[in-house]
């Protein structure tokens, strides 16, 4: 993909020098946007059919168009990249921070905001420093601050660091945290675009989403939307990790097949057993995953989700009882504790999975775990608790016999000893 200029990887540099960034075409998008009417910028993004890269896949232009006029509107960049196996936002912020700043500034212009926040996860302290330096550089070039490029448009960005909570990756929980409150999600509506930060209209976009915006403005919506799959346009950054020879971030047009992505990542180490797609809350597939197409609609049709674009590969040496344990422990540790089903459900799931992995599990746990997952899906307050059943059920669907066998074998071992 490096050959196409309509890609993030075109802008990744060894240096974080703003002049070098401008030299390879940086800030062309912002200049184009500032020459246009605000509404034309929104229309261009709508025409590109760009969809939110954080996981939900909501059309970005539609989100922007839904912002009511207000004296105080905010743009918030969700850089709380907490999804296990996901490191694409980090890749952008480390390698091309100005692309993000440029995208945010365009967003600010388009929705009539004067202020932006980058909410970055607490575990990325060095990147926060990188961004701070980039902000200074952008201000010194008049790409941020008062009267940007002499156009009369003023906009600035502030960095806020998270405290290490996964749930704060949810936009409403993130806004709670940004306002200094506990990171509890809130019920929508009202949507943040209507009532967000301090009850003002607020646009929340993911790092990757915002980073594609300058490309749309400098190359045009048509150039962007002709890349990718129907319904999921443009390129996408995929995080590939686990048992592949070259784990890393790979940029492909939307709709790339898993097997092609894995080939780009150097191929599987050993024999492929399972792939988890979309993050911890995504399904765990067997080798059938290889033929899947990685875009929003294809993944949904396959009963899964593209999520953040994380692809975690497991080879034949992986113990699926262990995977179950790790997955359930993640949910238990990261539940925010607000609603009953998630707070109590994750605790019980973690307990049972831990017992199974430790060899003290019972066969009856498996159906009770699935039942619990279903109750959580039906009654949890936010998508976090609702989604536990997805990895749980898919793991047991494909590897249930292995887990059952593991429980039985451990029982046998105990008897013999």
């Amino acid at each position, binding site marked *: 993909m490096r050959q196409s200029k309509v890609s993030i990887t075109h802008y990744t540099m060894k240096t974080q020098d703003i002049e070098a960034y401008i030299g390879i075409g940086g800030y062309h998008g912002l200049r184009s946007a500032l020459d246009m009417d605000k509404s034309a910028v929104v229309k261009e993004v709508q025409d590109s059919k760009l969809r939110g890269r954080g996981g939900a896949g909501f059309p970005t232009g539609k989100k922007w168009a839904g912002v009511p006029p207000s004296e105080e509107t905010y743009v918030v960049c969700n850089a709380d990249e907490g999804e296990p196996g996901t490191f694409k936002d980090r890749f952008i912020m480390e390698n091309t921070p100005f692309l993000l700043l440029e995208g945010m500034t365009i967003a600010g212009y388009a929705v009539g905001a004067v202020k932006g926040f980058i909410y970055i996860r607490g575990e990325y302290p060095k990147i926060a420093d990188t961004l701070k330096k980039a902000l200074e550089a952008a201000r010194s070039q008049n790409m941020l601050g008062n009267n940007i490029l002499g156009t009369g448009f003023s906009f600035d960005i502030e960095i806020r660091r998270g405290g290490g909570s996964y749930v704060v990756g949810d936009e409403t929980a993130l806004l709670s945290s940004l306002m200094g409150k506990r990171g509890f999600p809130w019920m929508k509506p009202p949507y943040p675009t209507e009532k967000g930060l301090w009850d003002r209209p607020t646009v929340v976009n993911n790092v990757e989403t915002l980073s594609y915006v300058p490309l749309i403005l400098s190359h045009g919506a048509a150039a962007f939307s002709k890349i990718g799959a129907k319904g999921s346009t443009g390129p996408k950054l995929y995080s590939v990790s686990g048992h592949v020879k070259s784990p890393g971030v790979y940029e492909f047009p939307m709709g790339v097949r898993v097997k092609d992505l894995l080939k780009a990542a150097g191929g599987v180490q050993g024999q492929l057993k399972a792939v988890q797609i979309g993050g911890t809350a995504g399904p765990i597939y067997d080798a059938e995953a290889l033929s899947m197409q990685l875009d929003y609609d294809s993944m949904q049709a396959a009963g899964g989700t593209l999520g953040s674009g994380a692809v975690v590969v497991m080879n034949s040496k992986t113990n699926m009882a262990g995977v179950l344990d790790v997955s359930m422990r993640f949910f238990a540790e990261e539940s*925010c*504790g607000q*609603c*009953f089903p998630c707070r109590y459900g994750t*605790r019980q799931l973690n307990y049972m999975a831990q017992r199974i992995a430790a060899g003290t599990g019972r066969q009856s746990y498996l159906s009770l775990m699935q039942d*619990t997952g279903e109750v959580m899906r039906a009654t949890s307050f936010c998508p976090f608790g609702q989604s536990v059943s997805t990895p749980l059920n898919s793991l047991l669907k494909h590897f249930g016999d292995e887990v059952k066998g593991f429980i039985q074998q451990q029982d046998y071992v105990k008897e013999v000893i």
Partner: protein
Amino acid sequence: MLNVNIDGKPIEVETGTTILEAADKAGIDIPTLCKHEDIAPLGTCGMCMVEIDGSPDYARACITQAQEGMQIRTHTRELRRIKRKLLQLVLAAHPDDCLQCIRHGECELQKLAEKFEIRDLEYEQYTRGLPIDSSAAGIVRDMNKCIGCGRCVEVCQNLQTVKAISFFGRGADTIVSPGAETNMGSGVCVNCGQCVVYCPVGALHEREQIDHVWGAIENPELHVAAQIAPAVRVALGEEFGMAPGELVIDKLYHALKMLGIDTVFDTNFSADLTIMEEGTEFLNRLAEGGPFPLITSCSPGWIKFGETYFPDLIENISSCKSPQQMMGSLIKTYFSETRGIPPEKIVSLSIMPCTAKKFEADRPEMNDSGFKDVDYVLTTRELARMIRQAGISFDKLEGTTSDSLLSAYSGAGTIFGATGGVMEAALRTAYELHTGKPLENINLKAVRGLEETKTASISIEGEELRVAVVHGLSNARELLSYVHKEQQAGRVPYHFIEIMACRGGCVGGGGQPIENSLYQRNLRGQGLYKEDAGLPLRKSHENPEVKALYEHYLEKPGGERSHHLLHTHYTRRNAYTL
């Protein structure tokens, strides 16, 4: 208006109505653990999930608004199954010591477990092993029993704005706790106990003193003298199946005597006395031109709140002790001397609707006689327990009278228990003492009722006096922030302000019978106004025992002895350096 259909029953509701409210209107009881009618919906428990036709997901009835044409089902087989599982998840984390629990029989979790027929648990039970915090004078917190519904946090943060407790930790380790690793005794908690009355389970309760009181009663060396607060007489009956607001004062006197209490006085008397002292203080300020506003000092929850969050207004707070402390002080002096019982042999006991009164009684300055004004404070709920322990069938009890000396009261004294009552009582007396003429209409309806902030103006000899009444500390915070701002600009928005920490006034105190919702509080308040209307004396200065007290002992309101025994001072507290 819009039309919905719930469980096959068509019903018309106003736009903006939640499904929960609509169901209630249709006579359908949707189970909840976190939602309470007096508190904004929290959406935490998930017990109110309902099925809506055409929607792939279940919805929380408490936070989902009814929409035109909605077809809603509330108790399908699947919903019942899911909720049973959910309840099991909660119960697996809850200690099963129901028989020893202070809320046994009044626990919302227990009631739901019964309703859903939870007979065994599929889940492994676990306990959290958390320490019990009994460092506060009025409130004990046992977080092992906490189900995490968040009502107490909502009440403390938003309804009372005391901000003593909030959520900490994540997932199953989530806990409600005072901030900065303090405990309740050393934090900003004002002991109002509103968290206690809204807690659905036994995680929060009053610090019980029943054993100490039994000990004092059973000790032949000691003379126990009790007082009963105004709000108790219209609430205690509820503990014995009577209606909220039903006046049970005569039975109450009898019950206390049957328990073995030697002398029974009535806080209504010292409420009248408070009016004499506070009314005089007000008239003195009127003569001297301030400082205004004068703010009432009867509610100990408000006093600590004021000391903490509005220390600049301390000189505005009346120096009068509360009726409880005035009575306590007189029991150890006037009563002691009159009856010839040495104060060290007297145990001063008060029956209060309030958990903060326990804190007030323990304040170090409350011992002007050289002895503690009040030795023990029992809440209405604790007294009910003692009455049951003594085998007294309270509802069938004959009435009797209290003991003379510190018991006579006027209607003005009895309405102290409801929001606006102190203001109304004070104005009845202040007007008359100042003008020498009787107030034409003594029913000051403008300051009665549950409206959050009530204001009125009254003309005394051509001077327009502005008064305000607030109940609930968030309303107090709002009003005082305004007063403080006006004061700094050199203006006096009000001359006299009544503040009660709890919504509804003392009838809604943290020690009152559960259920203690605005519904009950309203009826209890009405009960007090009804008693007032039927009493021969309606004004504090007409109280014959108050007159006698001044004649034989105190000399005059605001006099030297009054100042020594009946007035107090306040402490500036800082919310952030505890």
